[in-house]
């Protein structure tokens, strides 16, 4: 028997401010799944409301930074009745242990979920060293 669990309501987690923010508005930590196979590291992130042009993925040295901008859907003439969640930017940073082949990174954004594939760099081929007798 397979029973499906019920989804629990959870508020978004705000990013603790490490530096002073210049842009106004809250910033949230997206939920992610990260897993790896022998060839690549895959990251899935829930970033509802972010459109592809507003998403920035930055890999510098071994630090991967995700930033997503969210534009409000509310029109100014609407009045709030019940506000249960806030919207704002998404931000999350990871340090990668593996060396990534930067040219082959693949990112796809569908229905508010980002799938980022980071292929591992092929390890330097083991070299045979022959010692010549002098």
């Amino acid at each position, binding site marked *: 028997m397979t029973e499906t669990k*019920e989804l*629990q309501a959870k508020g978004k987690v705000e990013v603790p401010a490490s530096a002073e923010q210049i842009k106004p508005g809250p910033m949230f930590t997206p*939920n992610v799944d990260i897993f790896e196979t022998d060839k690549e590291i895959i990251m899935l992130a829930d970033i509802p*409301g972010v459109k592809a042009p507003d998403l920035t993925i930055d890999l510098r040295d071994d630090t991967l930074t995700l930033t997503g901008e969210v534009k409000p*859907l*509310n029109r100014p003439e609407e009045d709030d009745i*019940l506000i249960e969640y806030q919207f704002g930017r998404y931000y999350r940073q990871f340090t990668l242990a593996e060396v990534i082949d930067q040219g082959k990174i693949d990112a796809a954004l569908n229905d*508010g979920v980002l799938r980022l594939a980071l292929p591992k760099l092929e390890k330097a081929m083991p070299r045979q060293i022959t010692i010549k007798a002098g």
Partner: protein
Amino acid sequence: MIIKRMFDFPNYGWRSAFDDQERIRREMDRLFGQVAGQAYWPTHAGVFPLVNVTEDQDHFYIRSEIPGMKSEEISMSATGRNLSISGERKIASEGENVRYHRREREDGKFSRVIALPSDIEVGKIEAGYVDGILSIKIPKSEAAKPKQITVK
């Protein structure tokens, strides 16, 4: 003075001309919540999905963040002044040979009923699902719309 009431939400009572005070109170809660390291936005009914409800003169708008669904996987029905949303969020298996470092995204079923403050046109509800956000536009019934009265 316009008074709206939502019975379903324990944390949400009367709304009135004291809206500004309410807003300040919420802002204060948010500030103190941050200091105490609590959840950012504690005011919700505790049922997935979390929704934002707004209105203009003729419509109610419900918006909800449910990333990673297909529009056909979300079902909705409306009666009187209630709207129910249900579905199941599925996360596809990635196979046997993967090693997880983080697993924060959750799957499962959900079902929620939202009671609106006035009667709605059940037959004319429009819903869309874009970028993981479900948006529902609900026309108010004729009786619930505000009428302009001209003073002669």
